């Protein structure tokens, strides 16, 4: 049993921004957690007695701060979308997903999680912006890391669609997305960050960023609720250009 919602590319996500106070609250909340952790980890270095321990903590500090920096960079990109600085071009989604998985491998390992790839697409090029697609997949993966269970690895999937598009999805095996959030995404509410109280522990910032970038690229953004988890996906139009890879 599964249920699916699609937030269409055209029209559903009209430009609408949050009020400054509300936006600031969400961003502050989103950044406070990693910054607090970086501080705690740095302070805890003095508790480590051997080089391996120090190295492990240092690696975690780097991974956590990189994650926070990426969130800041994504927010800067969202603010600059209207300037049309991000050109659409033929992009190989496998290469983008490989980059994301390589980048997040350490972070998943720190969290005792695993991230796998499962590419099934026969067609290879989509029309997208490489940076934005990278951010979308990255945010999907972070979401999977936060909410996926330990037992089964999260998966990055690429598949061909019957409608001629290519789907890039991230599947997790964790608690199902609450019905309320499922409905909000269906109704295009992800145009604004979800309210903190709607899903404790999450501000919805990652989904907000992913939806904004999907909209910019003319792609469909949605989620599938499975009985044992969730898949967030983006459907991208095929490029007519031949893939040389």
């Amino acid at each position: 049993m599964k249920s699916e919602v699609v937030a269409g590319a055209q029209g559903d996500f009209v430009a609408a921004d949050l009020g400054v106070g509300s936006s600031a609250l969400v961003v502050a909340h989103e950044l406070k957690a990693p910054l607090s952790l970086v501080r705690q980890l740095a302070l805890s270095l003095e508790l480590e007695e051997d080089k391996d321990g120090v190295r492990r903590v240092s690696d975690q500090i780097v991974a956590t701060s990189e994650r926070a920096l990426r969130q800041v960079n994504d927010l800067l990109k969202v603010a600059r979308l209207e300037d049309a600085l991000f050109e659409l071009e033929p992009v190989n989604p496998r290469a983008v997903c490989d980059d994301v998985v390589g980048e997040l491998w350490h972070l998943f390992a720190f969290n005792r999680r695993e991230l796998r790839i499962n590419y099934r697409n026969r067609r290879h090029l989509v029309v997208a912006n490489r940076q934005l697609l990278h951010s979308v997949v990255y945010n999907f993966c972070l979401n999977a890391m936060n909410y996926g269970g330990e037992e089964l690895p999260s998966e990055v999937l690429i598949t061909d669609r019957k409608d001629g598009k290519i789907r890039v999805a991230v599947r997790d095996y964790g608690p199902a997305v609450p019905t309320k959030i499922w409905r909000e995404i269906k109704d295009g509410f992800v145009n604004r960050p979800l309210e903190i109280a709607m899903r404790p522990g999450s501000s919805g910032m990652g989904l907000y960023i992913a939806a904004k970038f999907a909209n910019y690229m003319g792609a469909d953004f949605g989620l599938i609720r499975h009985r044992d988890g969730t898949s967030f996906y983006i459907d991208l139009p095929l490029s007519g250009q031949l893939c040389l890879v």
Partner: protein
Amino acid sequence: MRIFVIDDDKMWEDYYRRVLRGFDLDFFHDGVAAISEMDEKRPDAIVLDILLTGPTGFAVLNEMRSYSELADVPVVIVSSVEIRAELADDYGVAAILDKSTMTPKGFRAKIEEVLNAA
């Protein structure tokens, strides 16, 4: 001494393991799983985050306090959100620590103090 750590941010798990080295730690990413486990194992103390996936930390506290066997288990709230100090009295919380301002040594010392007082 057994401590239940209830925090859905998995990034903190490794930190807790290192700072609370020497204690028996059980980790839970949601309050429901933690409360279920309390039927089997009674913790000597609980480290509780407030923003959790599923029921909030306050809901967990309410549920816990409704069981006579768990009513007196000391709870230390460790959270990124600002929590009014009066809540400590309302919910019978031993201490409230802010993730952004506490120190690893201070955190461990507070846990030891709470356990010694219990």
